[in-house]
């Protein structure tokens, strides 16, 4: 064989393998009841690592030594690609103002980094932890240089734009941000028109995102019906949305397992109704969801 041809044959072979992998039909993972011992074993190890007694060596090890990721006010990790927030926003703001939804959501995400840089530091079990949180906050503040308070406020307009356009992540973030993108005591300010409007919009957005098979939105709806601060408490909907959320993520359990997980406050008939509703919510949302 001509030795000069062999590298080309290797490349062609590799490409054929990649093509075969993608063209070969792959079965979707079947939804089977979770083997409980597996879930518990995994949870057991992780929980032990995370909750060791204060001062134990593993507790310190749990705090990442490397640069922590940047976290926006919505709890999402934001990657600025090495830019400052101002530089990142400048690259996208023109498109965002012209109604480009992707750009609008990215501008929101970046500016959300600047919305929690002045949060009071928490009382921590270890001083080193508090110092690390302070360092991360200072790093985030530095990245927010040249971002004005009005831009931080304006992020909510971009967020709403993306949420109204059907971006499920934005719809979840609208809920996570709270009224006006600020921490607000919902119970103490229940009669505020802005709070009332936010509750109505946020629940609506979660339902819309849930209808797109967004498991996170469905589980937040379950929590909302549990807390009762946004909507009236409803244990049946806690269970139904909880089941729908788990099924949206590909999980499935026996009716007994679902009842044990969610149905503590329900009688048999109500639990059965919630079980049916949960399956209907998941089937309706996830069958029609865009792949």
């Amino acid at each position: 064989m001509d030795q000069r041809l062999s590298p080309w044959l290797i490349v062609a072979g590799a490409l054929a393998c990649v093509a075969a992998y993608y063209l070969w039909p792959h079965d979707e993972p079947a939804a089977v009841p979770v083997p409980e011992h597996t879930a518990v074993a995994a949870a057991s190890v992780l929980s032990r690592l995370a909750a060791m007694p204060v001062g134990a060596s593993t507790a310190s090890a749990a705090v990442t030594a490397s640069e922590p990721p940047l976290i926006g006010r919505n709890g999402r990790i934001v990657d600025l690609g090495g830019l400052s927030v101002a530089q990142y926003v400048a690259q996208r703001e023109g498109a965002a103002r012209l109604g480009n939804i992707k750009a609008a959501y990215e501008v929101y995400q970046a500016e959300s980094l600047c919305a929690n840089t002045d949060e009071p530091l928490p009382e921590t079990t270890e001083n080193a932890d508090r110092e690390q949180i302070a360092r991360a906050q200072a790093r985030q503040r530095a990245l927010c240089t040249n971002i004005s308070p009005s831009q931080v406020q304006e992020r909510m307009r971009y967020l709403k734009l993306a949420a109204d356009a059907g971006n499920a992540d934005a719809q979840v973030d609208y809920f996570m941000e709270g009224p006006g993108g600020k921490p607000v005591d919902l119970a103490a300010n229940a009669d505020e028109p802005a709070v009332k409007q936010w509750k109505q919009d946020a629940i609506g957005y979660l339902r819309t995102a849930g209808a797109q098979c967004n498991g996170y939105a469905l589980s937040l709806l379950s929590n909302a019906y549990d807390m009762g601060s946004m909507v009236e408490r409803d244990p049946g909907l806690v269970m139904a949305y909880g089941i729908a959320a788990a099924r949206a993520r590909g999980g499935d359990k026996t009716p007994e397992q679902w009842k044990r997980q969610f149905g503590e406050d329900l009688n048999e008939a109500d639990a059965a109704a919630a079980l049916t509703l949960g399956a209907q919510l998941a089937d309706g949302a996830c069958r029609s969801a865009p792949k």
Partner: protein
Amino acid sequence: MSRILALLLLVSPFLTATASEQSSCSANKGAFLTGTVTSAPKFASGSSIDGVETSHTHVNLKADQDGKTYDVAMDNVYAVDYVKNAKAVPNSLKAITVGSRLEVCGEKYTSGVGIHWVHSNCGAVPTATAPNGWVKQLSSSGSVGANLERSQTYCYLWN
């Protein structure tokens, strides 16, 4: 005599409630403690699983059962108002104040004096090392509050 009877009548609902809770905790394979909170809630960072930080909130609890002070480690992700990746104690756990009464069901530390896994076990069959636990506030009248560690939102991290 009548005073003793009156006292018994007064405390009997509380004793009954506690006994029932203790028996429920045993059925859920947990260790049961009641006591008085002696330190305000404090935040502890944690590792990250799939981009979700598994931080904790700690309080000290002087137990009625043995008089020891336990470090109670509560997983923030199980609080219904946990904000993903927030470096803060969730409001529902912040409401635990020094002097308040608490009831916890979980697994005692194998080293040191403390208790963790004081949260739901996501519907799995409970075991001694993975009980179906809880944290509940006790009112002065003896009524038992809802489990503060009941959210199932992040169970997918372990399932």
